């Protein structure tokens, strides 16, 4: 057991402190180069540095390379390559506005190393009922899963700190579930995601000093999806991600087509006179999770963020219950 504890502690410390110490100088550099965007939810004209994905990917890659030094698993290589590719895709989208097709297609390509490295098991495990073998169908699942998790995390990056706070809850839930299922090596490999998110949350929480950008959000989502595949916890990972899935589902159900958020004219949220967020009455605006939370009345940005975190904790509990149910057979 000690041979697992030492790499776990080292990689978690490295993951946390690499992001913790590299983000402040990154903010300075981005501000100096005028790589900033307006914080749309602030009364004043606040400009925030973007993208923070650079420090996020640094924390992930360094900690996973250290873990590879201990374990030499193909699963770790798959995580490093796919997450790095997702970061590059997001960075291109941060720098240049790409078409709606760009992210889903390129993220599907980013998933290919998981297949080439053979870092997956084609059995899809369900709670209570056991598993189903779907060798061919599973390849399709891998190719679809990375774009879905990447874009799902990206779609929830709407308010200060929400994407990273949500990621902290979802990724630690996934690690707990992997420990429950006694998949210790992948559980340890998954821990840096939570610690990187936690360190970045310090700078992303309200009022944000930096935004992760598409590069950060896609890196988070791709790593989460890859861990789900290599750890064989696809169903549990989907459950832990349900609030973000609801957000994407509500959006797609209301606009009825696959489209970039920036292409939608109607805004789902407006501001009150004292700059609280309130649900819009605009019928052309998409339905989103934030809009539903605000349906009962205006809230501050911080209150909406905490409402989303409570939903994430609830689905995290459901995911942990599901992990325990994996060991039970009807």
């Amino acid at each position, binding site marked *: 057991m000690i041979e697992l504890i030492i790499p776990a502690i080292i990689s978690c410390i490295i993951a946390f402190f690499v992001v913790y110490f590299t983000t402040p100088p990154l903010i300075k550099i981005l501000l100096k180069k005028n790589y900033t965007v307006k914080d749309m939810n602030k009364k004043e004209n606040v400009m925030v540095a973007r993208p923070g994905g650079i420090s996020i990917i640094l924390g992930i890659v360094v900690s996973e390379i250290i873990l590879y030094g201990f374990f030499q698993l193909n699963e770790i290589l798959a995580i490093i390559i796919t997450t790095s590719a997702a970061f590059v895709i997001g960075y291109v989208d941060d720098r240049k506005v790409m078409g709606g097709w760009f992210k889903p297609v390129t993220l599907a390509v980013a998933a290919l190393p998981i297949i080439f490295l053979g870092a997956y098991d084609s059995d899809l495990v369900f*709670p209570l009922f056991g598993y189903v073998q779907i060798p061919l*169908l599973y390849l399709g699942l891998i190719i679809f899963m990375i774009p879905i998790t990447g874009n799902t995390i990206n779609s929830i990056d709407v308010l200060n700190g929400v994407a990273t706070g949500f990621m902290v809850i979802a990724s630690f839930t996934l690690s707990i579930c992997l420990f429950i299922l006694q998949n210790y090596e992948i559980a340890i490999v998954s821990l840096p995601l939570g610690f990187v998110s936690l360190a970045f949350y310090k700078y992303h929480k309200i009022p944000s000093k930096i935004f992760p950008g598409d590069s950060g959000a896609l890196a988070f989502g791709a790593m989460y999806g890859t861990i789900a595949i290599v750890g064989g916890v696809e169903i549990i990972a989907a459950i832990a991600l349900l609030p973000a899935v609801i957000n994407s*589902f509500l959006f797609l159900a209301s606009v009825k087509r696959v489209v970039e958020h920036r292409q939608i004219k109607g805004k789902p949220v407006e501001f009150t006179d004292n700059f609280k967020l309130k649900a*819009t009455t*605009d019928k052309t605006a998409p*339905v989103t999770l934030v809009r*539903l939370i605000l349906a*009962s009345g205006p809230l501050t940005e911080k209150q909406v963020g905490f409402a989303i975190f409570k*939903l994430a904790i609830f689905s995290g509990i459901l995911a942990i219950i*599901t992990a325990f149910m994996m060991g039970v057979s009807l």
Partner: protein
Amino acid sequence: MKFGLYGFLFAMWSLIIVGGGIMVVLLGPFTIQQFGDFHWILTSGTKVAIALGLIVMWILILSKLKNYIFKKELKF
């Protein structure tokens, strides 16, 4: 409202568990043997079609549930 969102989350979770049961109990053991060497292609194709059908059904049920749970809130 907030209870509605928790209820919707719980409904999604329940549908995943039930959907998993259908996949394992009905879809998993399903095979077509009558077509010689091509039986595995036919079996896989049929499984994919049924799985896609289940996903469409899952989305339709969720859509109905969404309208039912949030009928007041969705009258924007």
